[in-house]
């Protein structure tokens, strides 16, 4: 390779490397702001600020969803299988909302440790399968008597 | 076929508007981009050809010895 080209190549590569390091450090420093939501472990460890609009995300814990018969109020627990946080919400839930399903809620954490949400979004995972396969998986796991991973749990849809 | 009937295929269990809007926008934009690209290529070929023909005419006129005075029509491209 021609020496001038070699020189240009090294300059360009050095600039790119420097730039990547700068961007990596910036995003690392800002990671808490880039994270869309706090997970239940962070919230119960007190890492999330109180009375500030934040998002909380995790799985809807099975058997914790309580719907108020007179209004649209719903109370449920959000878990990451490590810690869980009670969430209350008044409003229409997304279609995909179900026990064992991932959600991201927007709202405030009050001083009793309850998360009062004003918006609930459904978060689905990267697994796709036909309904029959999901049913078969569920049956198989019931026969084994163990609970299946939440990601493969069919929702009431 | 994953659907029982054509109307079920269009409705997609209520998700039809979302699915079809996506596909419509996708195909319209892709087609526009493809047609636009072919058209601008044709346009540049055409303008090149015109330029060369014009040059060829000019050089022909220049090659013949210019008469001191003439009433013959000068061949100039009209477009």
């Amino acid at each position: 390779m021609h020496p001038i080209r070699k020189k240009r190549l090294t300059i360009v590569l050095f600039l790119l490397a420097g730039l990547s390091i700068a961007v990596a450090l910036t995003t690392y420093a800002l990671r808490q702001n880039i994270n869309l939501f706090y997970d239940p472990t962070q919230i119960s460890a007190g890492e999330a600020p109180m009375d500030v609009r934040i998002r909380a995300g995790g799985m809807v814990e099975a058997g914790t969803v309580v719907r108020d018969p007179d209004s649209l109020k719903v109370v449920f627990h959000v878990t990451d299988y490590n810690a869980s946080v009670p969430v209350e919400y008044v409003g229409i839930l997304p279609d995909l909302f179900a026990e064992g399903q991932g959600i991201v809620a927007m709202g405030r954490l009050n001083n009793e440790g309850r998360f009062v949400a004003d918006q609930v979004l459904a978060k689905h995972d990267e697994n796709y399968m036909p309904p029959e396969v999901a049913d078969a998986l569920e049956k198989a796991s019931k026969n084994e008597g163990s609970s299946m991973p939440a990601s493969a749990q069919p929702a009431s849809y | 076929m994953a659907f029982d009937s054509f109307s079920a295929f269009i409705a997609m269990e209520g998700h039809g508007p979302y699915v079809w809007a996506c596909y419509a926008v996708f195909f319209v934009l892709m087609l526009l981009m493809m047609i636009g690209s072919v058209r601008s290529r044709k346009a540049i070929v055409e303008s090149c050809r015109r330029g060369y023909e014009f040059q060829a005419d000019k050089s022909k006129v220049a090659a013949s010895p210019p008469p001191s005075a003439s009433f013959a029509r000068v061949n100039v491209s009209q477009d």
Partner: protein
Amino acid sequence: MWQFFHKLGSPKWFFGISTRFMPWLLAGGVILLMAGVVWGLAFAPEDYLQGNSYRIIFIHVPTAFMAQSVYIMMASAALVTLVWRMKLADVFVKAVAPVGLVLTFLALFTGAVWGKPTWGTWWIWDARLTSMLILMFLYGGVIALDRAINDEKSAARAVAVLVLVGVVNIPIIKYSVEWWNTLHQPATFKLTEKPSMPAEMWVPLLLSVLGLYLIFGWLACVRMQTEILSREQRTRWVREFVMKGRV
């Protein structure tokens, strides 16, 4: 090796070879894309969770994938422009930037329309969506910068620098769903593992990705030829090609 590399930089050589490939790229691309789309829309089974709205994946993933790989190709070409000053590399960047812009827009649009019924919102400022939006602005910036500078050579260098600076956004898009908490789900296709969907879903998806890739190849050829013709119209070979109807 270097000889081939320099031959690749010759506009005349590229013009001849691309003209031969173009019909095959277009035909193959259209066939594969239509096969993938028809299979995905009508024959693939519905998803257990999302029902039929997931069928948007058969155009969302191809456009999003292409939006990123077009940028990577542009960045490689920009490196060649800066180091080797090869004309054809610059022609490529200019020819495909608008295509990349359209593909990124389509990925964002289909994602938004898919997000409404599944997540419950059109848009959220999570890391994946935001970095994809930045990609769209990068494409826009490349086009605008190129138009703003009249001198061809300075435009080529300025554009190449911008493209290379923007390439740091690509790993951010790719890994945003792993590094940070996002609403967007992680990738279904991974290089090392089996895709997390059954074959009757991922085969049509793969077909439409390949089809869109070929159509992009065709589009790139057409647009590069346009750019070459307009730049080289004073050369003898373009004159010969045009007058003999070889274009």
